[in-house]
């Protein structure tokens, strides 16, 4: 599955537009990591646990978006956009959406 956030992919042409696909996930870390992050807030610096959480969520959201695209017979998702929102304390929602298309190589 080709995932891209541009609309015109070099050396590829869009054969067919299939429509909008989206993948979203809400995830949380276990309480221990939340507490550690709370301590970290005092000293500053990167919150490793949350970096990891958001990365995992983003991967999951992209995976779900791809699953939707695959289900309708697409082989690429173009113009992908991410949107993140804090839904609850310690939990975040990540949404990935894009246009599912069928692409073919231009053979140039």
């Amino acid at each position, binding site marked *: 599955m080709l995932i891209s956030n541009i609309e015109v992919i070099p050396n590829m*042409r*869009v*054969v*067919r*537009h*299939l*429509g*909008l*696909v*989206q*993948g*979203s*996930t809400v995830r949380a870390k276990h*309480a221990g990591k939340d507490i550690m992050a709370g301590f970290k807030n005092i000293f500053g610096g990167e919150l490793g646990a949350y970096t990891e959480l958001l990365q995992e969520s983003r991967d999951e959201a992209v995976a*779900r978006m791809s*699953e*939707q695209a695959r*289900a*309708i017979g697409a082989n690429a998702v173009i113009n992908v956009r991410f949107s993140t929102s804090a839904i609850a304390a310690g939990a975040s929602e990540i949404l990935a959406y894009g246009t*599912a298309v069928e692409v073919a190589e231009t053979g140039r």
Partner: protein
Amino acid sequence: MSLPDGNPRIPEGINARNDHPLREFLILAAGISGALVALVLVLGLTAKLIAPYIPFSWELSAAPSMQDLLAGDDADPGAARALSALSNSLLQSSLKVPVNGKDPKDVAPPEHFRFSLVKLDYPNAFATLGAQIAVTEALLQHVSSENGLAMVLAHEIAHVQLRHPIEAAGRGIVVQIALAALLGDSSANLLGGSLSTGSMLTLLSFNRDMELQADRRALDILRAHYGHVGGADEFFLDMAADPHSADWLEFAQTHPSSKRRLQLIRQAIREDGPGDATVALPEALQPNQPLQ
């Protein structure tokens, strides 16, 4: 390249799993409550181990006032004075009985003890943080001699000297924190808010082991005070006579395993022999009207 002729029919269950929500809830609730029970057990044990080492002065500063907790009016000052006098003389006798090999003076300095008589219409006695001991006026109608009342007071003194309030409070705080973590802020306010204020007494209730320990020490204190333990079972006998009354239920809520305790006391009386005659209640504490 043109537009599709319609939006795609995307299968359900990709972004929102079709799992039954109750299943997730049950698994989570079972797992977390299991872990919580283990945690509370461990922390309860720790509280027991740590309690003797917490300086008494800390307990004093953490103590809420008994008046706030019970919200009862002050009783007749004469009776309150008589109760304090009896309590203080018992307290002096209790200093002769070491607490787990330590001098009771060091464990809980006697000058910090506060005794009060509160105007509540159910028979009960409380010991809470900061060596505050309260007896309800209604309790006086359930004892017929000074010895019976002395047993109740000695029992509460024993709780304080054994550091039970701080141990129970420690456990109570643990339970509250665990609840708050478990149920989130909103529900913890709903559930825990009342625990922290209104039901402090319920949290400060002691478990079976504590009650039995306190009873044993109370009997020792009575022996040191009167030379015998005759009459120690009065209050229990009186309460047990009508085990279905509302008074009894109220009492049983804060004092578990009363039957077992009565057995212990009676056994002590039997072993010590009948002893000397019991002492009459001080006049100020005698009920002026018969039990209804």
